[in-house]
């Protein structure tokens, strides 16, 4: 049974997701960050689908578990697409050799394709422990890819603030999920871990909403001041 805290998070994240897409459409940023906006749209749709499945079958049903892990895995694949677009933004900013660009794009695309293939082939296992393991692996890969992206963003003396905020928000999201899955494996009896994924799920659209609403695309900042590097 879900409590008022879960409902509040659900509603907050849904409103933030809708806000991001509407704001991007109004300001003409939708196509500039196309895959990111498609991902946020997917998040909003996922929130609605999960709510309907929860209301129909209940939170402890196999249907809800299947829906949760299936949509989560699919959205993570879409998120890899969003990260690819962030890579292209970062590459446009800094001078990176072309072979590194190709390597990054190929590895990202291969990860996304492999994940999609696993989801399609092992669809019947997505309500079992396999789903949790697969999600944990995807989040770990996401964390590593975000770290590589972060180092590319740091190559410039003055980076675009929007890019810095988006990349760090994704970083917190992926690393936070990896920590949660890891801690859950060590201490499976602790109930507190179940609150972290919804919190992280709210964090991402909220931070994206803040970034799009408050930070202009042209604004730049010294990365040394942000990352503590010289």
């Amino acid at each position, binding site marked *: 049974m879900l409590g008022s805290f879960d409902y509040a998070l659900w509603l907050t994240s849904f409103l933030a997701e809708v806000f991001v897409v509407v704001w991007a459409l109004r300001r003409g940023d939708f196509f500039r960050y196309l895959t990111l906006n498609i991902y946020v749209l997917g998040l909003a749709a996922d929130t609605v689908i999960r709510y309907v499945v929860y209301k129909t079958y209940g939170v402890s049903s196999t249907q809800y578990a299947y829906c949760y892990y299936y949509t989560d895995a699919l959205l993570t694949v879409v998120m890899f697409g969003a990260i690819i677009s962030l890579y292209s933004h970062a590459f446009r900013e800094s001078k990176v050799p072309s072979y590194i660009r190709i390597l990054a794009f190929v590895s990202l695309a291969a990860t996304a394709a492999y994940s999609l293939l696993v989801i399609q082939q092992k669809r019947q296992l997505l309500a079992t422990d396999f789903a949790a393991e697969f999600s944990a692996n995807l989040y770990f890969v996401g964390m590593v890819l975000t770290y590589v992206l972060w180092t590319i963003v740091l190559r410039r003396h003055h980076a675009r603030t929007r890019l810095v905020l988006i990349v*760090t928000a994704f970083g917190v999201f992926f690393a936070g999920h990896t920590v949660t899955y890891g801690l859950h494996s060590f201490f499976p009896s602790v109930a507190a871990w179940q609150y972290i994924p919804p919190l992280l799920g709210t964090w991402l659209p909220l931070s994206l909403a803040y970034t799009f609403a408050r930070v202009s695309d042209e604004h730049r900042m010294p990365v040394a001041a942000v990352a503590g590097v010289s």
Partner: protein
Amino acid sequence: MLLALIVALAVGFTIHWGISYCRAAIWSAYNRELSEEVRSLAGLDKEGNDPNSCSRLWMLLDLCPRIGAQDSTRLRLVRFYCRILTSLNFLARRLGARFSGRFQRERMACTHFAAVVLDRRLASARQSRSRSHL
């Protein structure tokens, strides 16, 4: 063992990115061009970066009227943070310039933040005075 390593790495990344996000958000919200008036009052350079002007800026902020100021809590937090940095900087200077440099950079960000708040408060005080003259 490998899982413990991954968790430790992820915890480190979460903290690192969390701090970076906060810094970037504060920077984007408060990084404004400073007026000539504030720069000369606080003795700042053109970039508004002089860590040693910190104490003078806090003093000026205490004297400045707070008309419609909504940033008092954030200012108190930054002031507290700046005090910690000053103490750490004092200790780090004994260890070497490399350690001290990091704290100096952080203090510069605090100074800039305080200067922007002072600038805003002066502008709103001026605006309110001109409104009362009308």
